[in-house]
C-alpha cells in the first residue's frame, strides 16, 4: 500500500506542475507568436519566455525523483 501511495505522490508531483506549465505555455505561445510576427528579432527572448514556465515541471520532476529515491 505504501509503495502505491509513494508512486501516486510522485506522479502527482510531476503531473500537477506539468498541467500548470502547459496552461502557462498555452497563454504565452500565442502572445509570443503575435510578437514575433511584428518583431522577428525577439526570437531569442521569445524562446526564453516559453522556457520560463518549464521551471515548474522541472522542479516537479526533482520532487518526484526525491519522493521515489528517498
Amino acid at each position: 500500500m505504501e509503495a502505491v501511495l509513494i508512486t501516486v505522490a510522485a506522479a502527482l508531483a510531476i503531473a500537477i506542475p506539468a498541467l500548470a506549465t502547459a496552461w502557462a505555455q498555452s497563454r504565452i505561445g500565442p502572445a509570443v507568436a503575435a510578437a514575433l510576427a511584428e518583431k522577428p528579432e525577439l526570437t531569442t527572448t521569445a524562446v526564453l519566455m516559453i522556457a520560463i514556465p518549464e521551471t515548474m515541471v522541472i522542479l516537479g520532476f526533482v520532487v518526484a525523483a526525491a519522493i521515489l529515491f528517498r
Partner: protein
Amino acid sequence: MIIEMSKVRILGPRDRLPDVLRTLQDLSLVHLAAPAAAVGEPLSRVRLAPAQERESRHLRAILGDIDAAVGELRPSGAAPGRVPRAAPADLVRWARLARRVRREAERARLQLAALEEEKALILKYQQFFSAFRSLFEAEARWPNARAYHVLVRGGDAGAIPKLRASLVAAIGQEFEIYTQPLATGEIALLLIVADPAAARVERLLAQAQVQEIPVPAAYGGGALSEAIPKMLARLGDIPGELDRGRRRLRELGQAYGDELLVARAAVYDRLRELDALPLSGVTPHAFVLEGWVPARSRPDLTKRLAAEYGDTIVVSEVSKEEWASQDAPVVLSNPRLFRPFETLTRVFPLPRYGTIDPTPFVAVFFPAFFGLMVGDIGYGVVLVGLGLLLHRLSKPNTLLRNVAEIIGPCALFTIIAGFLFGELFGDAGLRWFGLRPIAFDRHEAMIPFLLLAVALGAVHVLLGLGLGVASLIRRHPRQALGRGVSMIMIVLVILALLATVKVLPRSFFTPAAIGLLVAFPVLIVLEGVVAPIELLSTLGNILSYARIMALGVASVMLAVVANKMVGAIGSVAVGVVFALLFHLVNFAIALFSPTVHALRLHYVEFFGKFYSPGGVRYQPFGRWLPARPRA
C-alpha cells in the same frame, strides 16, 4: 570585458577646425560628444551654414539614389576600402549617374518582374489551353455560334450527362459538347451553341454557377480561341526577353557598380563630416572638440595630431571627476576564445560603462552547464562533427561561425561529462566496452546529481552577487554593501543546511544561525523591507539549477530506452534502425533543450544579480565602411 576609456579635449585655432575634423575622421579613434556646457560663456556650438544645410540635404538625396541603384544592381565587386575625399565636381557627376542608373535599374527590374509574372500565368494555364486547342477545329465548324469554355472538376463524372440533359430540355439539339480530359483529373469542356439560343444557355450556366475560363485582358479578353495561340507564342518569346533584361542589369552593374560603391563611401564620408560639425564648440578664435578614445589609444591620438599640426593643437585628458561613467561609450574586448560568446550576451543591450561584461563568465559556464545536461561521449563526438561542418560552411564574423565556435567548447564539456558519468550513447558504452563512470552514474544516482546541480547553482549565483558588489561598489556603495550582506546570508543558509543534513559537522549550525540573525536586520536597514523577499528569490534561483539534473536524467533515460529497442523488437536490424532514430531524436532534443535552459540560467538567474544594461556603443568618428571590423 569593457575596455577603459579616456575622455579627451582637443583645442586649436578656429580656422583649423575643418582640417582637424578630417584628420580625426581619418584616424577613426574619437567617439565625439558635444562639449560640456560649463566650459565657459564665449563657447558656442557650431551651426551649419545654409549652404552646408543644403549640401547635407543634397547628399542624402544622392545617397538615396545610390543605395537604391546598388540594391537593384547588387554589384559583385569587392566593397571599396577607404576612398579619396569627393571633390564638388565628383558629387555633381555622381548625383546624375546615381539618378540615371537607379531609374534604368528599377525599370529593368520591374520589366523582369512583369515578365516572370506573365510567364507564371501562362505556364499555369498551359496544359489547359493545350487541351482546348484540340477542340478549336470543332469551334470553327460553327461559324454563327457562341463557344463557352468550361473546366469540370475531376470525379464529377455525372456532371456532363446532366448538363447535356438540361441543355436538351432548354434549347433542343442546337448545341454540341466536346470534352478533353486533363492530367490533373479535370475535364476541359467546350460548349458550342447556336447564336439564338445563347441567352438561354447563359442563364442556365449562371443558375448552375458554372463559370467560364476568363481570358486575360492582355490577350484581347475576347475569345479563347484567339487568345490561346497568342499566349503560347508569347511563352516562346518571354525567355529571350528575360535574358535581355538580366543582361541589361548585369551590364549596368559592370559599367557603374564599382563607381557607385566608391561614390557611396565618399558621400557617406562627407555627410559624416558635416554631421560632426555641430558637435564642435567654438569661440571667436578657437575651437574645442570633446570625445572618448580607448585609453590605450590616447597617446597615439596625441602623437598623430602633434605630428600633423605641431603646437597649434592641444590634446588634453578630461579628468574622470568631470564626466559620468554612464555617458562613456562601451567597447567590448574579449580574448579570441571567448569572443563567439558575445553573440549570447548581445541579446541584451550593451552593459553600461563601469559595470561588468558577462561574456567571459558565459564562455565558461554555458558550455559547462550544457555539457552536464547532455553528458555523453557519443553525442559529444557527433556535436564535434556538427561544429566542424558549420565552421566549414560559414564565413568569419558571421552568426553561423560564432555558433560553430560555441559548439566546440560545448562538445568538449559534453565529452568530459560523458567520461565522468560513463555514458556513450546512453548505456551502450557500459554494455559494449564496459565503460564505467568516473564520478557517478546519472541513471542510478539522481540525488548526488541533484546536489551537484544545486551546488553549481550556488556557486554561479554567488559569483553573480559578487560581481554585483564589484560593479556597484564605486557608484552605489550602500547598494553594494546590501548585495554583500545578501551574499553572506546565502553562504550562511547553505552552511546551516549542510550542517543540518550532516554533510558538515553539526557545530557549524549554531554559528551560521547566529550569523543569519545578526545579518538580517543589517540587510533590512541597507536594502529595505523587500530585501528578505529578494533573499528568498535568490535561494529559489539556486534551486532553479536543479534543471541541470532534470534535463540530464531525461537525456540519459531517453538514450537508455533507445538502446533497449535493439533487443525489444523481433528483428535486430529493425531494432537497430529504431534505436538510431530514437538517438537522433534525443540528440535533436539535446541540442535544443539544454541550450535554452543553459541560456535561461544565465539570463535570469545570473545576469539578474549584476548586469546593468544601457551602455552606449563606441562609434568613433571615422570613414565609412560597409562592414566595420571588430574594435
